[in-house]
């Protein structure tokens, strides 16, 4: 793509995210969301492949509809209460509409249908931006309006997200779709604790963003897009694949890796709030996603895959891994002992 156009799109992504995060008026929040939606469209459709164009179209339609719902909920609230403050959303209809609007923006079930196809149609780096950076403005809005959202609806959406994120990821062979479903189930975990302790939602989001960034960047280094390629990717960068194993298990939420921390704290908070059945249900449903994480982890470390390779070890080594992957892998695997410190930061 033209470098100047690329610069404008990346700068607009940063601008849109910053506008929404730093806003306290609903119109500013909506403006930031719309700028984000527009700016990422050319990045999704960069390769001009029909699948990429379809992904861009689906992304635009769902995000535009969700932004319209955000606008409707804020306008209904302004009509009834006379003010546009984000933290003062009090009208019940507005709260309900906003919950569904943010669910649509993030990709919570039952508004998740766009997410796997959009992630599959975009290149890996754009998929990374879609999974992490584009979730930050809606997550911020969720955090700011956490006291005004509908708790029943949010809990139902969360448990359904964990369920469908786990179940629908089971039959996938394309890694980007698997990561989309992993994102949906992680969003379920973030949504279930929002009413009781919004800071845990943010903690879960930050750690999820770090772990997903690691996975996406690692896959980008070895240019792996499907399971069959993953089976032979260890020849390109053996140590990187081993770290990918640990990062995937961290995403699954296994102790003693970092990914266990948000799940642990969320289960503890839910139990303290007399929501033990919900905690049990969402933990059991996460076992489904554990299965596909384990399958991915198996494919990263297998040394005798079922299909033939011409060589065991490439004689040309790839360019060395960049520093970002090293730092992010360390953070996403070894941060559990520092949990008290992390809790003070969030």
């Amino acid at each position, binding site marked *: 793509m033209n470098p100047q*156009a690329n610069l404008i799109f990346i700068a607009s992504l940063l601008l849109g995210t910053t506008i929404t995060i730093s806003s306290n008026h609903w*119109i500013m929040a909506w403006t930031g969301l719309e700028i984000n939606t*527009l*700016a990422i*469209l*050319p990045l999704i459709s960069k390769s*001009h492949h029909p699948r990429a164009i379809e992904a861009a179209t689906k992304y635009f339609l769902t995000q535009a509809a969700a932004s319209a719902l955000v606008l409707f909920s804020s306008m209904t609230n302004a009509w009834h209460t006379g003010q546009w403050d984000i933290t003062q959303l009090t009208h019940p209809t507005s709260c309900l509409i906003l919950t569904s609007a943010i669910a649509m923006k993030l990709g919570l079930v039952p508004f998740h249908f766009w997410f796997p196809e959009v992630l599959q149609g975009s290149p890996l780096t754009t998929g990374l931006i879609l999974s992490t950076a584009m979730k930050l403005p809606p997550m911020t809005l969720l955090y700011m309006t956490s006291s005004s959202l509908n708790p029943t609806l949010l809990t139902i959406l969360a448990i359904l997200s964990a369920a469908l994120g786990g179940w629908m990821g089971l039959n996938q062979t394309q890694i980007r779709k698997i990561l989309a479903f992993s994102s949906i189930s992680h969003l379920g975990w973030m949504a279930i604790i929002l009413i009781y302790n919004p800071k845990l939602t943010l903690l879960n989001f930050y750690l999820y963003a770090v772990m997903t960034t690691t996975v996406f960047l690692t896959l980008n280094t070895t240019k792996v897009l499907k399971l069959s390629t993953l089976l032979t990717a260890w020849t390109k960068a053996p140590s990187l694949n081993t770290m990918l194993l640990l990062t995937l298990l961290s995403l699954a939420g296994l102790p003693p890796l970092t990914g266990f921390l948000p799940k642990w704290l969320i289960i503890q908070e839910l139990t303290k709030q007399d929501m033990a059945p919900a905690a049990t249900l969402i933990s059991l449903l996460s076992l489904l996603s554990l299965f596909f994480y384990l399958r991915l982890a198996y494919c990263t470390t297998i040394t005798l895959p079922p299909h033939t390779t011409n060589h065991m070890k490439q004689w040309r080594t790839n360019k060395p891994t960049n520093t970002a992957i090293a730092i992010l892998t360390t953070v996403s695997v070894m941060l559990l002992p520092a949990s008290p410190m992390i809790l003070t930061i969030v």
Partner: protein
Amino acid sequence: MMGFVLFLGLCFVIGGLAVASNPSPYYGVLGLVVAAVAGCGWLVSLGVSFVSLVLVMVYLGGMLVVFVYSVALAADPYPEAWGSWGVAGYGFGMGLVVVVGLVVGGVLELLVDEGTVNSGGLLSVRSDFGGAAVLYSEGAGLLLIGGWGLLLTLFVVLELVRGLSRGAIRAV
């Protein structure tokens, strides 16, 4: 007076219905014209005449003109019209959805009981063109952000449609 405003609201919904059930964009845009004019009338009934004129100018004088120019370059030789049976069925289905929504949402009772909002008095001095004046004075940041959003839309559209047959729109 209230009956006329209700008629405008009905025209707005029918225009939206026409856009949603359009057989081809050339006929759908007629529904958009009806909806825009009805919306303009509704805004005038609320008292904000400046915003209604801005709506008409931007919608009919800007957006529709650009739409007509771009459609004139890529015209269908035999577009499907309103009369065909598929379109009639589609329109009927959409109409059914709208009526069910109105009845379930209790809008018809509201329209009968409450009527429309009257915003007369000195407030109408500040509400619409006062707001536009603030946009250009203290609200310059929002003006710049809005201008950047429009410029960004231009770049996005140019990037999405460049490339002729190697680009996103391969039929051209």
